[in-house]
């Protein structure tokens, strides 16, 4: 009797689990499908390489794509060296129990997950107004770099920590200095993990709207930015404004979906590369 009950329970449970995963994947799947189906038709070489015209109702989104790439490049150029060096210091050069290490851990963990709008608020008040950088590529990328710093530090630390000690010991035993060991042995081994972290940061920076809202993004500017003190157009901001503010929805509808699709493709591509690297890395690991 109990066995039958248990078996039925199991069947129900398994089905519940199957249904759950199905629902989960379908909802997101539907969302993606919806955007792809409505946006695919407008994607063309022109759409990707021409600027918008006639009050956003025609033309392409080239400046927004370029803007996003610029923002992301600058953000990672600032945060990757900073984050990686911090991680190296934490893992390789400091004793595990030192106050400094705990302080950094606390700092990184407390910044991780802080709402992106708080970064935006900080960026606006500090970079734009207080330092006087104005709404610019500079202010926006600095804000973004601060936002992704914890991710970079955390993933780099994890990557470095997962390199087995005997790698280091072997290298030192052969006569290499600590510096040489780090550069020639540890870093290459930790490379996939570090790259994954960097890509996660890049993906986030590319897709976030809140940090760039008042620090550097504009809806329309003629031409591309000519200096880091110029504002930029950016894909997520572009989508946000198109979706919420244009008075003539029907005219801009295809462009909205096209922008969403391009943003999606960009971010999902980055996400995919990061995930693939991570899985290849996990499987390849011989230790």
């Amino acid at each position: 009797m109990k066995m039958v009950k248990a078996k039925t329970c199991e069947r129900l449970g398994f089905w519940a689990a199957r249904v759950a995963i199905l629902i989960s994947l379908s909802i997101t799947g539907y969302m993606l499908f919806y955007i792809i189906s409505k946006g695919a038709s407008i994607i063309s070489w022109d759409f990707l390489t021409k600027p918008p015209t006639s009050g956003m109702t025609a033309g392409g989104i080239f400046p927004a794509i370029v803007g996003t790439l610029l923002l992301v490049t600058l953000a990672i150029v600032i945060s990757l060296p900073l984050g990686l060096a911090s991680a190296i210091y934490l893992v390789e050069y400091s004793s595990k129990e030192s106050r400094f290490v705990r302080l950094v851990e606390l700092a990184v963990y407390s910044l991780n997950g802080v709402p992106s709008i708080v970064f935006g608020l900080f960026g606006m008040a500090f970079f734009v107004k207080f330092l006087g950088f104005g709404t610019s590529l500079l202010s926006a990328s600095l804000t973004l770099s601060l936002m992704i710093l914890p991710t970079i530090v955390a993933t780099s630390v994890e990557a470095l920590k997962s390199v087995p000690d005997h790698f280091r010991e072997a290298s030192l035993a052969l006569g290499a200095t600590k510096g040489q060991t780090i550069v020639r042995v540890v870093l290459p081994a930790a490379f996939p993990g570090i790259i994954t972290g960097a890509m996660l940061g890049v993906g986030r920076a590319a897709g976030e709207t809140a940090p760039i809202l008042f620090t550097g993004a504009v809806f329309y500017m003629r031409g591309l930015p000519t200096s880091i003190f110029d504002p930029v157009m950016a894909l997520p901001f572009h989508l946000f404004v198109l979706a919420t503010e244009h008075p003539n929805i029907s005219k801009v509808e295809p462009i909205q979906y096209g922008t969403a699709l391009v943003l999606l493709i960009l971010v999902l591509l980055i996400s995919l590369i990061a995930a693939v690297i991570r899985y290849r890395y996990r499987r390849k690991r011989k230790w």
Partner: protein
Amino acid sequence: MAVLLVVMTSAILLSRTPTTTSTARSIKVKGSTTVLPIAQAAAEAWMEAHPRDSIIVEGGGSGVGIAALIDGTCDIANSSRTLKEEEKQKGLISHEIALDAVCVVVHQSNPVGELTLEQVRRIFKGEITNWSEVGGPNLEIVVYTRESTSGTYETFESKVMARENITLRALTKSSNGEMVQAISGNPNGIGYVGIGYLAQARGVKALKINGVTPTPETVRNGTYPISRFLYMITKGQPEGLAKDFIDFVRSPEGQKIVEEQGFVRLP
């Protein structure tokens, strides 16, 4: 490869600093979403004629523009409201550039075609909650208002609400465009926009207020009760490109652009 890309990008970007050469001028114009279409069109026209000049126009609301002007992050603030005392004390000067009517809009399927100012006030206060109370169908009224950053909101508050509070239940929209989008999608809705947005808008219609339809004529002769000036504001007297641009907008050519965008030229 990636490193090369990064280095190249950085080189291009860092090679120029904020331009102070006399050959290329640039200004940032920020603020009212009501003035936005006018500023945008005028900026495009100006840059056609003067390719070396660069004018970046952004929205965000009158409040945003004025705050940016005070904090020094833009050169001209577009505004659809008058300056407050504290703002005038900071040295801000406003220049009239057009006339506008704040239109009360509803979904185009709404049978109600006109309201009195008093009724509008009571609806926005939250005292009248059903369309049937003002001659419409038995539907709950959904009030849409603007964020506090909006000059249109301030104008509506002073001219229609007589400084009484709009109900907190009102859904907030952050631009004229968003307001139009929202109402065109909701048959129960009521909101307010600048007259220039009616031209482009689909799915909404403006109500007669106290029997008067908002048109350029009724704005000019003052019979439409919710009319106002639109402004471009500067910190101190405008100079350089800012001065030229504002003069341009106030010129006959600029005023033609004002009308093309659906607003009313200066008297």
